[in-house]
């Protein structure tokens, strides 16, 4: 088969069709349409395309109809010979925007399977590839995974061309480069990297290309495949590559000097290099006014922290360090826990597991029953667990709050926080606050050593880039964020003109 694909086309049409038919044996979705170019000399033509991928309207109207009927009428006096046919068809015959020529069988086959329509002319060893693709796809909808109140509502879809066009609509500069790759022996998936020339760091762009070219795999079905194949630290629980389904977020990332990786067939786009703080930021943070944003971010950071350590802190205090609670609270917690036969560690650990089951079920369940199940799960289960004396009310409060907190920031980061939470719970269940501190220290040491495409994961906090601290926990107003973040290693340092701070007009004028 490989040998066949390496061959070149011959002059004989019958032979060429036979060759393609052998390669595309038992592919019932490929359509072969042979017809005759109406001229004095009978010139045979063949159209080959994949049903469902090619735009049938375009194929019949702009190619077949044009060739069979309109062209001969348009130039009545001219006699077209077999030898001229290809040139003539190319110049006058096809009403298609994008055509390409090739004589390689492999390329022809790939074009057919990608949705292009191939036109073969008898007596010529060159095929014309018509870019008349058109298939059913999902419309552009609201971002499901990253909903926002204020800001663009569009999200990427499964088609890479639509996705790159969404990005191009945000950045109308020739400096926005979109380079294509094809990865996957069987899937031949289109992969594109996008970056802004002169803004993104050349080293990072080169590194991304190098890592992508390294991949030898049969198929790429989602960005996750690529993420796992190119990340810096495969064993880390933390994601070192960010992903998003929002074009505006990708645009913002590119403008700061990052590189985006698009994959055909998925609405998620990877951006590198990524920092930990990115996962705690939402795109809306930059659209709302900075005072509100800063306040919300403080809450989000606290919530992230709570989602990591709150259950372990509760376990440690209840089982080892009672003196940390004020007396009144201690008495009420002790009264609740009196009925519970299990140690605090077991109680919290099992309730956290229950919560994870509920969360997982909430995602997998068919949408219509999702609501009902979550009510049954959360309310009935929680309430009865307390009444039956399995857990204390305080535990339920802690677990519920932790669960809610973990949804205040980016999903993929919250997964790692959730996993580490269990690790910390075990530590604090055995060693109390010392275990918790040791666990948090281990996590911090791990984070200090992480890198994403050469950029320290904890920057700009550690190592400190002071100018970048304008956009970490608090966000400075837009007129004060004069430079792009240095920690991403971008080249375009200056973001805006100095002195854009608006002032009221002077009175009396």
């Amino acid at each position, binding site marked *: 088969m490989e040998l066949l694909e390496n061959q070149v086309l011959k002059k004989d049409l019958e032979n060429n069709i036979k060759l393609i038919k052998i390669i595309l044996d038992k592919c019932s979705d490929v359509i072969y349409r042979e017809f005759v170019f109406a001229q004095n000399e009978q010139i045979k033509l063949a159209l080959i395309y994949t049903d469902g991928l090619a735009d049938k309207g375009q194929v019949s109207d702009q190619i077949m109809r044009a060739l069979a009927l309109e062209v001969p009428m348009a130039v009545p006096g001219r006699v077209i010979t077999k030898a001229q046919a290809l040139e003539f068809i190319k110049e006058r015959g096809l009403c298609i925007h994008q055509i390409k020529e090739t004589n390689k069988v492999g390329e022809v086959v790939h074009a057919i399977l990608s949705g292009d329509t191939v036109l073969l002319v008898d007596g010529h060893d060159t095929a014309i590839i018509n870019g008349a693709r058109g298939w059913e796809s999902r419309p552009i909808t609201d971002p499901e995974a990253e909903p926002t109140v204020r800001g663009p509502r569009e999200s990427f879809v499964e088609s890479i061309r639509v996705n790159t066009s969404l990005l191009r609509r945000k950045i109308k500069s020739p400096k926005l480069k979109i380079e294509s790759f094809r990865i996957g022996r069987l899937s031949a998936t289109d992969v594109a990297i996008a970056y802004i020339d002169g803004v993104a760091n050349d080293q990072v762009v080169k590194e991304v290309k190098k890592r992508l070219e390294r991949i030898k795999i049969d198929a790429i079905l989602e960005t996750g495949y690529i993420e796992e194949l190119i990340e810096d630290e495969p064993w880390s629980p933390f994601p070192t590559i960010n992903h998003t389904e929002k074009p505006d977020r990708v645009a913002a990332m590119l403008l700061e000097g990052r590189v985006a990786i698009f994959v055909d067939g998925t609405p998620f786009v990877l951006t590198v290099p990524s920092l930990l703080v990115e996962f705690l930021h939402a795109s809306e943070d930059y659209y709302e006014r900075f005072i509100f944003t800063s306040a919300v971010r403080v809450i989000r950071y606290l919530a992230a922290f709570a989602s990591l350590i709150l259950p372990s802190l509760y376990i440690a205090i209840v089982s080892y360090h009672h003196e940390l609670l004020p007396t009144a609270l201690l008495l009420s917690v002790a009264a609740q826990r009196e009925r519970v036969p299990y140690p605090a560690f077991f109680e919290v650990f099992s309730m956290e597991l229950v919560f994870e089951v509920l969360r997982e079920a909430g995602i997998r369940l068919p949408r219509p029953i999702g609501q009902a199940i979550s009510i049954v799960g959360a309310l009935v289960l929680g309430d009865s667990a307390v009444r039956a004396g399995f857990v204390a009310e305080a535990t339920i409060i802690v677990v519920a709050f932790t669960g809610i907190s973990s949804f205040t920031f980016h999903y993929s980061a919250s997964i790692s926080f959730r996993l580490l939470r269990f690790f910390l719970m075990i530590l604090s269940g055995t*060693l109390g606050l010392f275990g918790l*501190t*040791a666990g948090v220290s281990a996590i*911090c040491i791990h984070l200090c050593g992480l890198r994403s495409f050469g950029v320290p994961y904890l920057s700009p906090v550690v190592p400190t880039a002071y100018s970048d601290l304008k956009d970490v926990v608090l966000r400075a107003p837009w007129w004060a964020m004069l430079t792009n973040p240095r920690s991403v290693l971008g080249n375009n340092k200056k973001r805006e003109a100095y002195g854009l701070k608006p002032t009221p007009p002077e009175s009396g004028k």
Partner: protein
Amino acid sequence: MLEKEIIDDKQAVLLIINMILPTALLSLPAITISIAKRDAWISAVLATGVGLMFGRLVSSLVMNFPGKTFFEFSEEILGRFFGKIVGIFFIWWLIHSCSEIVREYGEFLSTAIMPDTPITVFLVVSAIISAYAVKSGFEVLARFNLLFAVLMGVFVLVFAISFLNVKFTRLLPMFDTAMTDILKGTLVPLSWMGEVVVFSAFSPVLKNCRSVVRITDMSILLVGLHFFIGIVGVLMIFGPEVGSAMMYPVFNQVRMISLASFIERLDYIIFMSWVIGGFIKIGIFYFAAVIGVSWMFGLSDYRPIVFPVGIIIVALSVLIHEGIVNQLDFLMNTWPFYSIIIFETGIPLLLWLVSQIKNRRHSA
């Protein structure tokens, strides 16, 4: 060994501070006060002055041999044989002090926080966390330290709040203690400040070794300030008698905070930052020991011996003392002389003198 790792001056200063401070705040005030009584703060001031000279000694060695670790330049100065011997002594001291620190932490945790847990658990866990930091590299250790410095802000705030309880009259009468006691008390903080010599094991990580003088001066001054504040705080809150009777007076000082009758028990914040600081301090000594051992065997990478050295440290820390009383006695009466005379001044001074004489001879 450390070629690729580079830290900037601020990180270096913070690193030296956290190399000295964590254990110091734990047990230093009580020991110093028990010797120098009410005038212990004078000891802290004097120790800072002498400590600056220690720092100068170390930094002049580092500057004369740029890009070389302590072990490498001691070999260069004293020749292969004597250099190795000095290096081995120094490695011993690093491992010994590391076990002392680990033990000190274990004792603190098992007496003040969790008395029912066997001390070995704390020793092992502390060593594991520090080993992880060491294995991750010097840059990571420095960054972790920087991250911890951010948290130190909270520590300082809590510490400041505890000063609401002070009574200045407890410092009176001043200069009441005998001069010999004050000088004897000076040795205790000095033995901590002398630990600055450990930094010379990492000198290749500095961006520019010219700045090492500023780095050591700065860090010794800041450490001295902390000692002074720590001792003065304990004196003004508890007075010399109660203060020296307590095992961990700074801890108790923060425990006494009661703001608006619901901000209480802040001692746990101090406790946590001490634990993290302890990991850093252990990590730095551990790292220096590991660098020394890998130098001794001529290894190109230090990572394979992190674990073996860790086992030695933990085992030694289990065996080294019978209990906290024993250890405090050792820290008060033996340790200052042992470490100051031999390792913190003796060996560096010897190296410095020999290198000066050699230089003289070269130029003559």
